[in-house]
């Protein structure tokens, strides 16, 4: 279909040169910081370079890494899921109870993942069908799922799990200090990155996060999309619960208490906007690793966990401030350019009446 006989224009694909787009980003800043923290720790912290440190660091951070993947997608659509850590706890209890009841472990694990998926579906139902804000819904289900988990198991713990599975959870890739779970994470991360950045579905997530109404007018089913994300978040959290249980050979109702804040902090540190529509998965992975590495190095250096929390908190605030500062500087710069170019490039004009 031809339309007007307008002169054929060719457009530059990008307003800025490639190096600027690659280097001057939030994600690059976090990656650089991660590398710096690793280098400084290697030089100054005793035992930081031991294989055992690497193994423990990656094991501990694995559940956070896993759940950060669906959390990123949810925050990109301007929603949030605060119930993930409670789902980890619930899945842990379900795994323990079913294993104790004599169910073969793989079946118990599958049931736990299923429970996580249902929990996510419940969140999704309340957010998309009932239409409640996800912040309120998941604060509620944070308490609800945790309550069910603690209620099912009381204050006891189940610690008896098949050795084959607990060994697998703790196993390393032969010849390396890297836990096997990292292989699974790498595959999942690749899938999530491709989905978010290179598929029509990923495009719809960013569009929803930036302008829900325009997304709906473009034929995107906003409710269904969000529902899927909450289900996905529940399923991944359920799986993380199984891993958590095996890693510590311990099924308890209060497992992973407070982990949701660590996850969300890492996602935001990684450059995902809490207002939706902005973010990249490699930044999130660097964000999780940065918080994990910093904590590990400081612990090794004999600093108490209270101080570590303070430092992590300051880091997060600093990163948010730096983003706002960057945005402000950019706005000033483009405003200056706009003034020079005159009236053509005015950002908007009000309606005529």
């Amino acid at each position, binding site marked *: 279909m*031809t339309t007007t006989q307008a002169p054929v224009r060719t457009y530059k694909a990008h307003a800025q040169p490639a190096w600027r787009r690659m280097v001057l980003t939030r994600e690059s800043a976090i990656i650089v910081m991660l590398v710096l923290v690793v280098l400084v720790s290697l030089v100054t912290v005793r035992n930081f370079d031991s294989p055992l440190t690497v193994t423990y660091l990656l094991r501990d951070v694995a559940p956070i890494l896993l759940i950060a993947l669906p959390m990123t997608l949810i925050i990109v659509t301007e929603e949030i899921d605060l119930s993930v850590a409670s789902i980890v706890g619930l899945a842990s209890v379900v795994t323990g109870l079913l294993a104790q009841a004599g169910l073969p472990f793989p079946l118990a694990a599958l049931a736990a993942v299923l429970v996580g998926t249902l929990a996510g579906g419940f969140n999704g139902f309340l957010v998309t069908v009932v239409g409640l804000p996800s912040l309120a819904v998941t604060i509620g289900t944070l308490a609800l799922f945790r309550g069910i988990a603690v209620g099912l198991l009381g204050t006891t713990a189940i610690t008896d799990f098949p050795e084959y599975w607990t060994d697998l959870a703790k196993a390393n890739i032969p010849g390396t200090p890297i836990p096997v779970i990292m292989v699974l994470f790498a595959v999942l991360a690749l899938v999530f990155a491709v989905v978010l950045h290179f*598929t029509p579905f990923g495009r719809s997530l*960013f569009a929803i996060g930036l302008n829900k109404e325009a997304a709906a007018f473009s034929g995107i089913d906003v409710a269904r999309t969000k529902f899927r994300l909450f289900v996905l978040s529940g399923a991944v959290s359920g799986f993380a619960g199984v891993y958590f249980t095996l890693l510590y050979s311990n099924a308890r109702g209060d497992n992973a208490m407070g982990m949701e804040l660590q996850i969300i902090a890492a996602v935001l540190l990684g450059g995902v906007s809490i207002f939706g*529509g902005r973010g990249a998965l490699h930044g999130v992975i660097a964000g999780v690793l940065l918080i994990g590495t910093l904590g590990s190095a400081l612990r090794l250096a004999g600093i108490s966990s209270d101080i570590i929390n303070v430092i992590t908190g300051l880091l997060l605030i600093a990163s948010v401030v730096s983003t706002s500062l960057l945005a402000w500087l950019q706005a000033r710069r483009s405003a200056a350019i706009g003034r020079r170019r005159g009236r053509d490039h*005015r950002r*908007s*004009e009000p309606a005529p*009446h």
Partner: protein
Amino acid sequence: MAIEVETPEGPRPVLELRRVVKSFGPVVALRSGSLALERGSIHALIGENGAGKSTLVKIVAGLYRRDAGEFLLDGRSVDFSSTAQSKAAGIAVIYQEPTLFPDLSVTENIFMGRQAVKRLGRIDRRAMRAEALEIFGRLGVSLDPDRVTDGLSIADQQIIEIAKAISLDARVLIMDEPTAALSGVEVERLFAVARSLRDEGRALLFISHRFDEVFALCDTVTVMRDGSYVDTTPIGDTTVDELVRQMVGRDVTELYPKLDARIGDVVLEVDGLTRAGVFRDISFEVRAGEIVGLAGLVGAGRSEVARAIFGVDPYESGSVRLEGALLPKRDPRAATSRGIALVPEDRRKQGLVLDDGVSRNLTLAIRSKLATWGLLWGGSENQAAQVWASRLDVKAAALDAETGTLSGGNQQKVVLGKWLATEPKVLIVDEPTRGIDVGTKAEVHRLLSQLAQQGLAILMISSELPEVLGMADRVLVMREGRLTGGFTREQATPEAIMHAATALTEAVR
């Protein structure tokens, strides 16, 4: 075209505007607005949508500052930079839907921000309540001063706004389409209040689309058109037909050259479409190559019909068929893939993701088509974006430039391109040229005309009569949720359309 307001011998006008100009960037909203309000008189201001009435009112209210022209109050030049200054000068504006504090009482709302106080700064409730009752008595209305305003009808809320104006001793009252949401009895009561205010010597300005009300209430009428003053006449010296002629009178055929297109088979068929309280029993069809204009006043339900057809909004009964096949309800995705495209009314909110790039916006509706094996690599989107941006001559620095940085006209081109990229069979455009500059407007019109020639079926919603008359092969008119007129290109006259849109169909026929 615009002439000077004759200042009648007799009392000096309390408020006078002379050749006031206001523009927003390239868009001139008010070319030459003139108006003179006198004490003890009700003055009507009428004109089409976009004639500049609201802009004029906003200048008087202190919301906008004029670019040029004179604004006199009691013969002295004034220049308001805030609504507070306008209020202090004795001007009160009552809007169509008042904004009150719903949890506060009627009295508290009337005296908000300037409560009567006793010693030690304590609020004197009794004095305020007495004054509220006294005002209600003067207006001849009975309202409980102690009840909260939440749940009051719009008519009662307007009375509270009027009471507020009186307690401020406003000399000039401006009512911007106050009757739009009122029932017959409420309108009568409002008119009685307005007359008693006139008899107290205040000056009133009444903006309305309803001629019967203008004739029933007002003493003088001023007509505006295209941002300019047309004429002021005593109400007894004019007729409805004369006013309509003044509102629309201009040469429309030369503005928008419509190319002849071969009209083909029926493509879109809408039958009995109904959504309770919004629109009722809407039936029409659009043929290939045809541009059907949908005219009417703002709020007549035209955009809602378009959204229901496209599937963004629900409808209760009726059907939409595309080339004979039934279209599912509430499924914009199905509508898009079957060949319906909707360029929505509000491009900034509904049409575009302003914070995203031009390329992403142009390809948002066809993102699935552009994927190979389910994957989108940057190249395919930019190639498609390149094609559509250059066909529509979008002026942008780069394909990843944020769409929000483009001018209004170029933003509209991006929305058009986004939907033309879906290769639709039916294109619905809702106010396609609202708020864009004259040059781009002509481009959009030429584009629509060419698309029709290529066999596209086009439904064009527009509140601008010249646009409808210039572009459409057929004109449908809606009023208050119903189709009230259908005209061929030959039958469609400005007068006929305005009558069908403003409830005076019987009077003309």
